[in-house]
């Protein structure tokens, strides 16, 4: 059975009417604060609602991220959308169905067991009663608190959940429609903002006449503090002007990051706040059996294919904002604060952008458009960022150093285990740490100083400490977390936050220990895993890939294994990678087994795992943000290569059928194990382990030459 404890979203939005309405005959409006970022959430939530209400999926009209009528559900992040948002919708729909059925039974004087629902119509002994959700809705009233106690359907009775429902948003997308970028009302005012190249930079000089000349048609230049916006009726004019402005601007002051920012030495040299967490008691270690290794990852950027876009209109004291923000309700609150408006006068409408794999610039673009709209009442202001600004000014996924230490017992198993992490915070989304974290707002005169930074708290999965605690049976575990809160870079969330680097480090280290023990890496893992679900996932991936049977691969070709349970509470995923290496890595085949409990949208789940594999591979094989002259050295995709069609291996996925277990978040589950499996395959293929990411051609060549 699915548990009936109240999920957070339902605690925050307790009224049934915040979630569901029967306004238009035949159609059910279901609200969600979770938004589509390419992960298929709208389809999966529709499946849950339709099944629980006994209506057809096409009868559900999902209103997502519209702040005046959708529930406020924080950010769409951390693989919480199905596990928390979906669970809330399930409980609400079950309760609504129950309320209506009780009322019908009372009206007709019949037993509940005689009643059923079809397409929203109530049947008694299979015959239409003439009543339906819409005819009864006014009488029942949904302005009441959800109790969360109504019985939900048994998974074995699902007709829509767990079955294939094609993505609802794809038909529009295959004709190139459905994106925020395509909204073009009359009377648009186009705008671009000149970005500060680093935190606190002061615009000491800007040749405005040269900027105007570059635009070729008249533009307006709005300057307040360090916030400089260029506006015109034509987008191309503001594009040209902003390109010129970027070149012409003279900046001084502030805190430009040094060129070695992100190297392990730089990271470990930053001021830190330290915390040690210990559990268990050490086992009996053998003298001299202390193994240590240190791993690192560089700065990364999320690299969405679209640049961020927002529209805003300010009229009669009220602000309307269209944004692809991952947290429309949070954005509303912090826009209101930063702009000095009552929150009730701000309404955010979520519209889809390109994939967001973390904290992107959607919120910043929304602030840009809103701030400019307030200076042009009645106009709809549209901001679309340049690619260069995306690379230069987007939040950065932070570099980390992760050191592992194990003392081994006489069986070569860890008797004592320490993981030590150095990392800036992994989250600076709007509102976090009491900061608006909106780039434009920070550029205004009298912008409030940045409040001290913390990382994502452990009860929310942690940031740098996400997946820091290895899932293996370890008698004593010690976690030393050095939070680096003062780095002069806007570090924030990218898919999995610290998880994938921790998994890379832990799984690499486990392979290193297995090698010392002279054991097969999968057998060694299994000897340390007592959780039956974890074992099953590991065993399934081994079976799929014939792990134990395939030996003697040609020289330069090898396989590696990686495993984790995302956040130690979400989905389990095990990945086997087969690769070849000459001067660089060529991926040949990937196998992935996952256990996500009850799977709502099986093809959507596979799509997410596949995407996570490719993105995880790209992270560890190619990606790195460097700084030079105080700013990001990434100007275009040429400076930031990601995996392309010609790099993609065959991928085989097996979802373990576990419908009676609660749904577990899955969107981030395959990323870490994939990176780890690549590292673990590269080591035998190369005959040398590389512990610092990315595993690029340059790094591989340098490693070989250092021999």
């Amino acid at each position, binding site marked *: 059975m699915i548990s009936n404890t109240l999920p957070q979203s339902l605690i925050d939005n307790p009224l049934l009417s915040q979630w569901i309405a029967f306004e238009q005959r035949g159609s059910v409006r279901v609200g969600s604060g979770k938004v589509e970022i390419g*992960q298929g959430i709208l389809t999966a939530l529709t499946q849950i609602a339709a099944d629980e209400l006994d209506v057809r999926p096409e009868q559900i009209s999902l209103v997502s991220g519209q702040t005046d009528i959708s529930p406020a559900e924080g950010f769409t992040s951390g693989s919480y959308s199905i596990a928390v948002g979906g669970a809330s919708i399930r409980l609400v729909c079950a309760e609504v169905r129950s309320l209506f059925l009780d009322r019908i039974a009372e009206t007709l004087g019949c037993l509940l067991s005689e009643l059923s629902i079809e397409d929203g119509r109530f049947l008694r002994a299979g015959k239409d009663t003439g009543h339906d959700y819409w005819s009864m809705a006014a009488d029942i009233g949904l302005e009441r608190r959800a109790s969360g106690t109504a019985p939900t359907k048994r998974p074995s009775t699902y007709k829509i959940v767990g079955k294939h429902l094609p993505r609802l948003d794809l038909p529009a997308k295959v004709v*190139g429609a459905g994106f925020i970028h395509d909204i073009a009302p009359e009377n648009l005012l186009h705008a671009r903002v000149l970005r500060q190249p680093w935190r606190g930079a002061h615009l000491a000089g800007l040749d405005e006449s040269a900027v105007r000349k570059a635009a070729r048609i008249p533009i307006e230049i709005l300057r307040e503090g360090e916030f400089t916006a260029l506006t015109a009726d034509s987008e191309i004019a503001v594009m040209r002007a902003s390109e010129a402005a970027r070149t012409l601007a003279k900046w001084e002051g502030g805190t430009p990051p040094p060129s070695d920012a992100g190297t392990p030495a730089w990271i470990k040299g930053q001021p830190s706040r330290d915390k040690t967490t210990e559990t268990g008691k050490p086992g009996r270690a053998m003298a001299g059996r202390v193994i240590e290794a240190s791993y690192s990852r560089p700065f990364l950027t999320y690299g969405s294919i679209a640049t961020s876009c927002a529209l805003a209109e300010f009229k009669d004291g009220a602000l309307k904002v269209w944004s692809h923000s991952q947290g429309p309700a949070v954005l509303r609150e912090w826009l209101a604060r930063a702009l000095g408006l009552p929150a009730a006068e701000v309404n955010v409408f979520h519209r889809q*952008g390109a994939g967001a794999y973390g904290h992107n610039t959607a919120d910043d673009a929304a602030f840009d458009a809103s701030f400019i709209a307030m200076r042009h009442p009645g106009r709809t202001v549209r901001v679309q960022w340049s*690619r260069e600004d995306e690379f230069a000014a987007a939040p950065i996924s932070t570099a980390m150093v992760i050191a592992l230490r194990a003392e081994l017992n006489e069986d070569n198993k860890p008797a004592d285990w320490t993981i030590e992490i150095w990392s800036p915070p992994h989250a600076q989304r709007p509102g976090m740490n009491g900061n608006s974290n909106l780039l434009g707002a920070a550029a205004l005169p009298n912008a409030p100083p940045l409040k001290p930074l913390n990382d994502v708290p452990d009860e929310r999965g942690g940031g740098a400490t996400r997946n820091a605690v290895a899932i293996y049976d370890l008698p004593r575990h010690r976690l030393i977390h050095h939070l680096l809160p003062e780095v002069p870079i806007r570090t924030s969330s990218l898919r999995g936050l610290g998880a994938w680097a921790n998994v890379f480090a832990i799984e690499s280290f486990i392979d290193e220990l297995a090698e010392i023990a002279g054991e097969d890496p999968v057998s060694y893992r299994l000897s340390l895993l007592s959780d039956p679900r974890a074992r099953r996932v590991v065993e399934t991936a081994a079976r799929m890939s014939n792990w134990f049977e395939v030996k003697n691969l040609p020289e330069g070709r090898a396989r590696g294994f990686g495993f984790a349970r995302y956040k130690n509470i979400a989905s389990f995923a095990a990945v086997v990678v087969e690769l070849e290496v000459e001067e660089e890595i060529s991926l040949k085949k990937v196998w992935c087994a996952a256990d996500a409990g009850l799977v709502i949208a099986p093809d*959507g789940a596979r799509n997410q795992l596949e*995407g996570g594999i490719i993105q995880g591979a790209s992270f560890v094989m190619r990606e790195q943000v460097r700084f030079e002259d105080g700013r990001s050295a990434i100007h*275009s995709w*040429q400076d930031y290569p990601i995996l392309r*069609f010609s790099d993609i291996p065959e991928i085989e996925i097996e979802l373990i059928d576990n419908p009676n277990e609660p749904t577990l978040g899955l969107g981030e589950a395959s990323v870490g194990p994939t990176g780890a499996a690549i590292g673990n395959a590269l080591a035998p293929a190369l005959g040398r382990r590389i512990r610092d990411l990315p595993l690029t051609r340059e790094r591989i060549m340098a490693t070989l030459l250092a021999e």
Partner: protein
Amino acid sequence: MTENLSFVVNGRPVSLSIDSTTPLLSVLRDDLDLRGSKFGCGTEQCGACMVLIDGKPEYSCSREAATVEGKTVTTVEGLSGTAGSHPLQQALLDEQAGQCGYCLSGILISAAALLASNPKPSRADIIAALDPHLCRCGIHNRVIRAVQKAATVIAGARP
């Protein structure tokens, strides 16, 4: 700098009086309201803006509109011709080859050009044709399967 510019877009002759140094993508999106082609980078590095020019896939984000004077341009909106949809579009849906979908309109253009010149492409042919396109969500294998499927469908439809 305003000039007259005439070309055929999606089978329809158009004549515009514009600054002909404007990128073709802007003309398509803003002046002709054909918003299927996407801005991704502006530097011909991601493929989101791909259109057919006289049948060949070309980036539209930085080339000047004047370069298509007298030529034939096809955007994703014109891919299906008079049919309801191009077999590639149906194949993408059949394979659920999309996550965010932002790269798809450009990919469709290159895939359509490939199938027009090579009705039975190998996996390697498809990869070569699509390699100019970046996808960040990781739908590559699904897209490759969709192109293979569309090729089969088109071959089956041919008498």
